[in-house]
């Protein structure tokens, strides 16, 4: 609002205080203790909560990746494979599925996961044969690499 002299400005009162306070308190309603009711305490808590939520976005990626790895490890152990063997042999057979998809397959499509574990196991055996039995045996079938041009 445009005021033409200082005298008029001094007479105006702040009428919005309730809503300005509620804008902050609405983010503090689920807190514990007095900081969900009292504005002075809530301002500090809400600011810290926002800072923590922005910083936690980087941690969330790490946390979810380790969760997926735990799940894939449990599923592959059910089929008799350890996690490093499973992942490395899948990569060597050019199956480039990421850990998120592998974890979802292990939960919702157990038969597909079993076939992937069998593929990794077969590639592992062919790797052993190629490394140990050097010589006349032919190369393994699943060790062939497909080149995309």
């Amino acid at each position, binding site marked *: 609002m445009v005021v033409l002299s200082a005298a008029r400005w001094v007479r105006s009162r702040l009428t919005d205080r309730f809503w300005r306070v509620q804008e902050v308190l609405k983010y503090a309603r689920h807190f514990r203790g007095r900081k969900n009711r009292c504005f002075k305490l809530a301002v500090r808590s809400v600011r810290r909560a926002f800072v923590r939520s922005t910083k936690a976005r980087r941690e969330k990626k790490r946390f979810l990746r380790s969760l997926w790895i735990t799940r894939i490890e449990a*599923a592959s152990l*059910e*089929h008799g494979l350890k996690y490093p063997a499973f992942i490395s042999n899948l990569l060597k057979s050019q199956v480039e599925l990421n850990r998120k998809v592998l974890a979802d397959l*292990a*939960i*919702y*499509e*157990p*038969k*597909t996961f*079993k076939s992937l574990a069998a593929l990794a196991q077969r590639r592992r055996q062919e790797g052993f044969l190629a490394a140990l039995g050097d010589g006349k045996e032919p190369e393994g079938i699943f060790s062939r690499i497909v080149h995309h041009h």
Partner: protein
Amino acid sequence: RYVRQLQRLQLLFSPTAADARGARQFVEEAAQDFARQHPDVVLYVSPHSGQGPAPVLRAEYLNGTVREELIASKTSEEIVQLATKLANQSGLDIIRIRKPFHTDNPSVQGQWHPLTNKPSILTVQGPRLKPQ
């Protein structure tokens, strides 16, 4: 074929209030063009004489949600932009979507349970077999 989710737009303003000047200019100049460009939206113009509530543009959608936007002290162009924005929206709530995907059938082969990869002798019940 595209079905516009906006059912009707109600323009509630008073013909004498000072902050409804943009609404009055919109009704005089741009309302007809807007109605012609959006033939499947019904535009209601209802002036309430005297000192009513603040001028408001109410949008009702096919799924029942009603969205009210204040148009007090807005120019006619801004009201046109607001109206096109409301016309292009659907009536879903504007909140954070937790996941950009959703399935009703997440599992095709049957969800994993602790007995999926165990030998079936554990659960089979027959006339002589008992589950171990």
